C-alpha cells in the first residue's frame, strides 16, 4: 500500500514537472517576412511560426545574431530596426496602431511579433498574413502586431502560436534575417 502511495506521488510529481518544464527553440526570421502588413506591400511573405503553446504561458524571444538589409545599399540593421525617412507608405507597426503619419521612423525592419490564438491558427484557410487585405480566408489582425526588438517577454493567456517578422512593407529587395532563441515556460 505504501509502495502504491509512493508510486502515485512520484507519478504526480513527474506529470507536474513535465508541465512546468520549459521548451526552447531557435528560429530564423528572413528579412522579407513582412506578413504582407503595411502599405503598399510588394511581396507577400507570411510571418514565421516561432513557437506554439497549448496553455497559458510566458514566451521569451531573444535575439542571437543576424542583420537585415532593407534595400539600401550597405545599410544593415539589427532587431531594433533603423532610421528611415518614410515620407510615404505605411509600416506594419503603424498599421497595427491605425496610423500612417508619413514621418521618419526609427524601427525600420525591426523584429516584430504577433500572438495568434489556437482557434484562429487551426482554422481552415489560415495564413500568417495581414487579415485586412482579402489575401487569405483567415489571417492575422494588424492590431495584434507588436515590437519585439532585441528581446521581449510576453504573457499569453491561452493556447496559440507566436509569429515573428520584420517591420517593413516593401520587402522584395530585402535580404538577411535574424536568428532568435524562443523560450516558453
Amino acid at each position, binding site marked *: 500500500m505504501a509502495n502504491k502511495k509512493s508510486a502515485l506521488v512520484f507519478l504526480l510529481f513527474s506529470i507536474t514537472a513535465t508541465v512546468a518544464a520549459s521548451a526552447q527553440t531557435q528560429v530564423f526570421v528572413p528579412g522579407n517576412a513582412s506578413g504582407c502588413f503595411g502599405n503598399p506591400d510588394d511581396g507577400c511573405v507570411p510571418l514565421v511560426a516561432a513557437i506554439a503553446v497549448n496553455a497559458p504561458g510566458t514566451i521569451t524571444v531573444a535575439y542571437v545574431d543576424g542583420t537585415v538589409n532593407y534595400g539600401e545599399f550597405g545599410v544593415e540593421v539589427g532587431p531594433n530596426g533603423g532610421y528611415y525617412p518614410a515620407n510615404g507608405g*505605411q509600416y506594419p507597426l503603424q*498599421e497595427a496602431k*491605425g496610423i500612417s503619419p508619413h514621418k521618419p521612423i526609427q524601427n525600420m525592419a525591426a523584429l516584430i511579433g504577433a500572438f495568434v490564438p489556437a482557434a484562429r491558427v487551426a482554422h481552415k484557410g489560415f495564413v500568417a498574413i*495581414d487579415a*485586412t487585405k*482579402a489575401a487569405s*480566408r483567415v489571417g492575422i489582425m494588424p492590431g495584434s502586431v507588436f515590437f519585439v526588438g532585441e528581446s521581449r517577454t510576453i504573457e499569453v493567456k491561452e493556447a496559440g502560436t507566436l509569429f515573428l517578422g520584420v517591420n517593413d512593407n516593401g520587402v522584395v529587395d530585402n535580404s538577411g534575417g535574424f536568428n532568435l532563441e524562443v523560450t516558453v515556460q
Partner: protein
Amino acid sequence: MTGTKVALVLLVFIATVTLAAPAQTQVFVSGQTNGGFGAPIDMTVPYVPAAVVTGPATITITYINGTVIDAGGVDTGPDGTFWNCGTAQSPLEESRGVAGGKISDLDALIGVFVPAARANHPKFTAIDGTKDATHVGIPPGDLFFVGEAKTIVVNEAGTLFLGINDWWMGDNSGGFNVELTVQ
C-alpha cells in the same frame, strides 16, 4: 429663508433633470458610406459622425426608415441581406480578420466608437486606418453590427460613427435614417 431654500432645492432639481435628460438626434447614413473598409474598394466615403459623448454614456441607435439599393437587385433594410462575397472582404469580415464566402449582412448598418484622443486628432479621418489612406484612422477590429437597433455602453469620451457593410460602393444608392439617444 424658507423661500430661499425651496428655490434652491427647485434649482438643483431642475439642473439634475436637465443633466439626466437624454440627448437625441437624427442622422442619415448614405448607402455609399463604406469608410474605406473591406477589399477591394472602389471608393472611400468616410463614416458619419452620429453621436459625440464627453464621458461614459449609453448610446442607443434606432433605425427609422430607408433602404440601401445595391447591385443584383438588393434593396435592404439595416439588418442587411445575403450575399456571396467570392474572394472579396466585407467591412465586418475585415473586423474579424476573415475574408470571402457567404455573408448575411451585406449593406447592413454598422458602427464604431472612436475614443476622443483619436477622433479629435487633427489628422484623423473616419476611414480604415490600415490602408495608408489617412494619417490617423479607425482600426478595423472596432467595427460592429448595428442592424435595426443597438445599445452600447462606452466608458470614455468619443464619437460614434456609422456606415454600411459593403466594400464596392459605386453601384449603391439610398441610405438609412437613424435616431441616436445618449444617456
